[in-house]
């Protein structure tokens, strides 16, 4: 009884043991399957490896990080993630903003359009990747040739393939952000638009001076989330080009996954330490982006 009074507000029906029994089924797998492996990645990246067994007593310092930063494919991966961020911020977000604005303000069949736009978000990424692989290899060139242009090797030409493997990701994201931005725009009071219209504002000015300022916090959050998504993009690269040709289309994660699958199939030596360093860097970059987001929110007093 004392124990109970110590743990709980008086008169409540819960018991400490009862509460523990409700929490533990979730906290145990959460600790061992999610948090513990996350921490292990950092440990694995700084110890020596004996084949597939980490030697926890032998600290290897930042050797693996040294290899990583001298590896050209790491920098290619980072560049492709940067291309994804560019597409996300300069293509996905503006298109989603415009669609969400028109749907919120003017469209009758808003629900129908929203459903259509969201569709790519629910279809498994694997199917989308093979769909786009097929389209880039078989569908676009016949159209180009029909209108008198020359064919492009979309999935092998350097300088092109980096964009064609990133485009499906940007395309897929539009519908998701339309739904999110519509939710934000729904709370913008109609009177604000009406007042601005009385002052003679056109649609573009309405977006700039009414919509954007009203959802500014959400808009910034969305852009930063797109950035962190770009750091994790990989499925199109992995399944459309396998990171090729000549590793030109790897992203940080597709490069990481290529290490891990080599390990599960063939006898070839895997650089576990190297893969861990890569995972640790990818995580740190995403965490930094998330940190910037939290910092910005704290500063603007959002949330």
């Amino acid at each position: 009884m004392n124990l109970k009074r110590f743990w709980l507000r008086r008169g409540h029906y819960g018991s400490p043991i009862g509460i523990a029994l409700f929490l533990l089924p979730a906290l145990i797998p959460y600790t061992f399957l999610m948090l513990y492996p996350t921490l292990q990645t950092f440990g694995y990246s700084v110890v020596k490896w004996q084949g597939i067994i980490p030697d926890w007593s032998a600290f290897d310092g930042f050797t693996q990080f040294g290899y990583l930063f001298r590896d050209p494919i790491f920098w290619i991966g980072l560049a492709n993630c940067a291309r994804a961020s560019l597409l996300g911020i300069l293509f996905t977000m503006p298109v989603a903003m415009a669609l969400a604005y028109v749907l919120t303000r003017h469209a009758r069949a808003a629900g129908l359009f929203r459903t259509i736009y969201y569709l790519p978000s629910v279809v498994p990424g694997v199917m989308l990747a093979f769909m786009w692989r097929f389209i880039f290899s078989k569908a676009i060139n016949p159209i180009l040739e029909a209108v008198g242009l020359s064919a492009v090797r979309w999935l092998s030409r350097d300088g092109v393939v980096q964009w064609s493997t990133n485009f499906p990701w940007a395309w897929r994201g539009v519908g998701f952000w339309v739904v999110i931005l519509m939710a934000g725009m729904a709370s913008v009071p109609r009177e604000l638009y009406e007042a601005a219209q009385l002052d003679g504002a056109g649609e573009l000015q309405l977006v700039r001076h009414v919509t954007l300022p009203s959802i500014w916090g959400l808009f910034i959050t969305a852009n930063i989330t797109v950035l962190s998504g770009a750091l994790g993009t990989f499925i199109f690269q992995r399944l459309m080009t396998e990171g090729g040709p000549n590793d030109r289309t790897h992203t940080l994660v597709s490069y990481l996954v290529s290490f891990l699958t080599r390990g599960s199939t063939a006898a070839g030596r895997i650089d576990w330490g190297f893969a861990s360093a890569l995972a640790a860097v990818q995580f740190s970059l995403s965490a930094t982006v998330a940190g910037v987001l939290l910092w910005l929110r704290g500063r603007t007093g959002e949330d």
Partner: protein
Amino acid sequence: MYLFLVAWAVITLYPFLFVLLTSFKAPVEFLDNPFGLPKIWRFKNYVIAYVQGSVATYTLNSVFVVIVSTAMAMFLSATSAFAVSRFRFRLRGVIWAYILIGFLVNNYVLLMPLMILIRRIGIYDSLWALSLVYATLALPFNVFFFAAYMETIPRELEEAAVMDGANMWKVFWSVIMPISKPAVVTLTTFHVLYAWGEYVIALLLLEFAHSTLPVGVATVAAGKMAQNYGAYSALLVMTSIPAILFFVALQRYVVKGVTAGALKM
């Protein structure tokens, strides 16, 4: 204005339509006529894709993972959300923070140690283990969502049940859960779509032969079906349709969940 809306609808839908039409064409016909309607509707492509792609096996595995991991995800997150949202105890703040840390963790940072761990404790190539991993990785968001919902339930309801002699489990199961049904439905739709489409973890935790549909499709489509455009497309259509139908039927809940995510932002 409508032109713009329709234009993006076409850009969204046309790739799907193209694959759908191709799925009814013979490979030879596709080369002559990539864009038009099929002259001869070749349903045989679906039979070829189904049989040669081992679609039945992969689908069964996926259905198993979807059902088991959704049940696990709902149970684990609802019980812990109940504990943190309905009780005021000493470690509550600590446990809440501990669960929210999970929002920072992305799936990629833990892939390799998770794969090693699963192999070492001998549950590699197990659909149960994969299901538990999915349920666990979805935990932070699910707990957050459930807890936010459960916070809004008035205290009087559970007090009345306690007066009648209900214990914690009874309050959870017969008072809180029935009221939380909308949250359960929303989170279930998300988890079903996630478990149906997840690729990289299934790739690492299961043998190819016993894998789920996305991994199976990736193997078959890049391998023996790569040149048979009709069967390749049929395979993609077959595996996308369940997700699309599921979404169209339950889109109200999906939109509600995404919207709740937006408000969280």
